[in-house]
């Protein structure tokens, strides 16, 4: 099962869902906080869902306050960077570009991508953490560089 966990993690990196920052978080995990990464991920998803809802509400109102939208997305991108959520971060960056040039249609389109990547990552990480818990304590598997 340890091998399965390692393979899943490798695929998350190989497919670009996660970047080196996730490894940095795993390096911080120790016996005192064996579930640190999962706790951080849980906090990320709780906070990012709040931001997604705020952006959704702003867009549904039809009010394209690009400054406000950009502020929300700045926070979202920051959190995504902190956890190593690479694809989500990329989509956030594109959204901010559309905000910068005041492109409402672009914002709407890209926001669907942001939500899609976010949901995909959440599902994959939940599966990964569930398996990791079942597999028990392990040495941190290193991504081959």
């Amino acid at each position, binding site marked *: 099962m340890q091998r399965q966990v390692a393979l899943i993690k490798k695929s998350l990196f190989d497919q670009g869902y996660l970047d080196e920052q996730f490894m940095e978080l795993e390096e911080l995990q120790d016996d005192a906080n064996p579930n640190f990464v999962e706790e951080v991920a849980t906090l990320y998803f709780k906070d990012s869902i709040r931001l997604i809802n705020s952006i959704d509400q702003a867009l549904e109102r039809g009010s394209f306050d690009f400054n406000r939208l950009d502020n929300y997305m700045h926070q979202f991108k*920051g959190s995504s960077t902190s956890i190593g959520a690479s694809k989500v971060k990329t989509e956030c960056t594109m959204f901010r570009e559309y905000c910068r040039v005041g492109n409402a249609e672009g914002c709407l389109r890209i926001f669907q991508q942001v939500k899609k990547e976010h949901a995909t990552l959440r599902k994959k990480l939940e599966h990964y953490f569930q398996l990791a818990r079942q597999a028990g304590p392990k040495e941190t598997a290193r991504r081959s560089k």
Partner: protein
Amino acid sequence: MATKSMVDIEKTKKKINVLIVDDDPLNLQIHEKIIKAIGGTSQTANNGEEAVIIHRDGGSSFDLILMDKEMPERDGVSTTKKLREMEVKSMIVGVTSLADNEEERRAFMEAGLNHCLAKPLTKAKILPLINQLMDA
């Protein structure tokens, strides 16, 4: 220059006391963990205004302040300026986004920072600065 490892820092028995100023609870959790991992202790402030109040109330002194730039109530630039006006002598390290341009970074530095680091923060980025403090 040789970089002190975690073990070396432990041997000196000096605990670095850090104030982490950031409005993102995720960053606060991660940065606290980083500081703990390198043998330090930390306190947090959710925005610049809290950081100013912590210093105004007295009784707290920090070796290092990690200062986020974009925060509500009072941002990192304003907070750094204020702390320097209050004659806070701690090493203040600004934490910026890669999206920040050169002008924004320069303005942040000129507010009174000692150093500026780009997010995301890692042990490897912070350790050389901790070594500087230990050697001072």
